[in-house]
């Protein structure tokens, strides 16, 4: 896909070219129009001056004046051409510059001079001709004809009959005008071209400078490696538009890094966790094969079964954990009698507690009913209790406390944990974490508390661990909602 830089450059250059071209053309047209208008106005003035000079004091045409006046009206070195017609179309006179040639007789309304392009004799050079019509009146009339003629609107208002209508056409070689216009075209074209080039250069520089933060951000992202996600991208100062993008990306990268690290730890721990039972199974089978007394069958089968059960336990716990973490657990919420549930869970763990002479104490009877999923809540509580009984010292006590506040209720399990430190508490919910480092505990999957926390979250609750200075560990399930009738 074309780059943003190229796309912007292309569209801005096209825009710049169109604007420069259109601007140049408009300017050219306006200047040309102005030049022509001024030229035509000058030509018309000369025609009127000629017309005024034609009328003698007695109201008759004085053609002799034309020659001298023609020379006086000539604005440049170029000759001035003029010709005068009577109202009946006969030629009243012409300038010597015409020789025997004629100018075109223009059809000119009274008071509305017109200007046209003409071919000038003898070579047919291009020229410009202005035509005016003048009415001649009898001098004995009450109104001055010349004034009426010069002032067109006033003349229209006066209802007198003219004795003649003269058509005067004055022409001039337009090469000066054409040359000036040509110079103007060239200048405007040169100006537009230079403007476009300068604009293009400026646009290139401006785009490069403007898009530099984006380029740096892209480069920073390109250099990112799977092992350096936490480093993030775009550490330099970024414009306001990009800073939120950078911040959000870095936030997501940090989460990806955490997820990667968790997955790596999890996979390594799982592989490690399964190595020992596999080693047990393999060694057990190999030793059995080496026996030569034929007595190995029953013990071998028992050992194989025990290892299989352990591996099954690990796999089931992992599957449950995955389901809980992915949110694919079906949660049907209903009314759960908390006392009865705790009593039931406690009963399951009595044999384990008795083996260690651990007393389980719980003050039931509150009659609290919560809105939750009974089976999932049982999973959480069972894991908390199993953990407490397993890791408390023998001959001690495990205490279960229920605390209601508002529409919420917490369940906390307390046990002595003299071997734990505050730093250990942070690791307790990590899969396969064990305080003593033992890696072959056949009784546990190693993900009990991890599973409990994931399930608790799926239930909309949270699970916290806290160690007090007397080395009493509290695992607290918070956020259970009390059911109202």
């Amino acid at each position, binding site marked *: 896909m074309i780059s943003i830089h190229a796309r912007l450059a292309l569209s801005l250059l096209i825009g710049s070219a169109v604007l420069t071209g259109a601007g140049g053309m408009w300017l050219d047209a306006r200047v040309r129009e102005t030049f022509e208008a001024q030229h035509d106005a000058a030509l018309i003035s000369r025609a009127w001056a000629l017309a005024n000079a034609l009328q003698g004091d007695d109201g008759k045409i004085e053609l002799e004046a034309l020659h001298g006046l023609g020379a006086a009206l000539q604005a440049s070195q170029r000759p001035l051409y003029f010709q005068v017609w009577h109202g009946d179309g006969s030629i009243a006179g012409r300038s010597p510059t015409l020789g025997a040639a004629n100018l075109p007789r223009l059809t000119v309304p009274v008071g509305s001079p017109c200007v046209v392009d003409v071919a000038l004799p003898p070579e047919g050079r291009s020229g410009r001709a202005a035509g005016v019509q003048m009415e001649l009146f009898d001098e004995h009339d009450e109104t001055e004809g010349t004034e009426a003629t010069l002032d067109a609107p006033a003349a229209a208002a006066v209802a007198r009959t003219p004795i003649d209508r003269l058509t005067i056409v004055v022409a001039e070689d337009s090469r000066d005008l054409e040359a000036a216009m040509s110079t103007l075209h060239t200048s405007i074209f040169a100006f537009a071209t230079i403007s476009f080039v300068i604009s293009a250069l400026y646009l290139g520089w401006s785009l490069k400078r403007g898009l530099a933060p984006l380029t740096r951000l892209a480069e920073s992202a390109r250099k990112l490696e799977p092992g350096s996600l936490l480093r993030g991208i775009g550490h330099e100062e970024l414009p306001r538009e990009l800073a939120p993008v950078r911040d959000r990306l870095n936030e997501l990268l940090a989460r990806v890094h955490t997820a990667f690290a968790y997955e790596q730890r999890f996979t390594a721990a799982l592989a490690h966790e399964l*190595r020992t039972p596999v*080693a*047990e199974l*393999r060694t057990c089978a190999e030793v059995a094969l080496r026996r030569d007394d034929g007595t190995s069958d029953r013990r071998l089968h028992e050992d194989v079964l*025990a290892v299989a059960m352990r591996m099954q336990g690990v796999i089931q716990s992992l599957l449950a954990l995955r389901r809980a973490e992915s949110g694919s657990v079906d949660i049907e919420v209903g009314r759960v009698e908390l006392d009865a549930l705790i009593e039931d869970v406690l009963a399951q763990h009595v044999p384990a507690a008795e083996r260690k002479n651990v007393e389980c104490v719980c003050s039931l009877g509150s009659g609290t009913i919560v809105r939750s999923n009974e089976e999932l809540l049982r999973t959480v509580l069972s894991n908390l209790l199993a953990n407490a009984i397993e890791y408390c010292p023998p001959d001690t006590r495990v205490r279960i406390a229920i605390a209601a506040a508002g529409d919420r209720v917490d369940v906390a399990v307390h046990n002595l944990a003299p071997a734990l430190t505050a730093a250990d508490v942070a690791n307790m919910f990590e899969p396969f974490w064990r305080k*003593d480092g033992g890696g072959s505990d*056949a009784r546990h999957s190693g993900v009990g508390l991890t599973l409990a926390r994931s399930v608790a979250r799926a239930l909309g609750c949270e699970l916290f661990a806290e160690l007090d200075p007397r080395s009493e560990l509290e695992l607290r399930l918070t956020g259970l909602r009390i059911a109202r009738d």
Partner: protein
Amino acid sequence: MKILVVEDSPMLRRSLEEGLRQAGYAVDVAGEGRDGLWRAETGGYDVILLDLMLPGLDGLVVLRELRRKQITSRVLVLTAKDTVHDRVRGLDQGADDYLVKPFALEELLARVRSLCRRGYSANQDEIQIGTMLVQLRARAVSIAGQRIELARREYMLLEYLALRRGEIVTRAEIEEHVYDDRGERTSNVVDATVARLRRKLQGSASDAEIRTLRGMGYCLDVIAT
């Protein structure tokens, strides 16, 4: 040869104990780090199979303590940790060998044999003393090409003496290296086994003999002519 297995998995511990006994070793076991360290310090083991992730005391700590106290037993680390970093760390702490779980029992036994030989500067699987040939791998003894039948303890004692050929071996050393916690260590068990071995060697017309050095111990070597 006497082996200590320090492994927290009861099933693996039991299997290793049995497998090593089948292979003719005296075997003691420990299920956690502190017990393992205590046994290793006091048991005079030829080889210690040491798991790294142990309850009570970490395997690497056990290893460091053994080396600090100059316990010369060969240590084979048995662990599920398989990264290069883990191996290097184990070997740097003083392990003689490293085996990752799961492993083949045959390979484990080969490594144990190798470590046993290294302990007595023997580089091969066979020890020739005159006409007597002790085959360590096959755990068999032959004299002039004729195999002689030996009981398990008899072989273990002869192998230990053969590994220390020409050296005076005390009764206490024999007890330490040949008998484990299961063995009945009566006061004359070593003397009785040596006596049986002598009869079998003489019956096979071997030119190797086990001499008694009164008040000192035993010495296996070719009969001086």
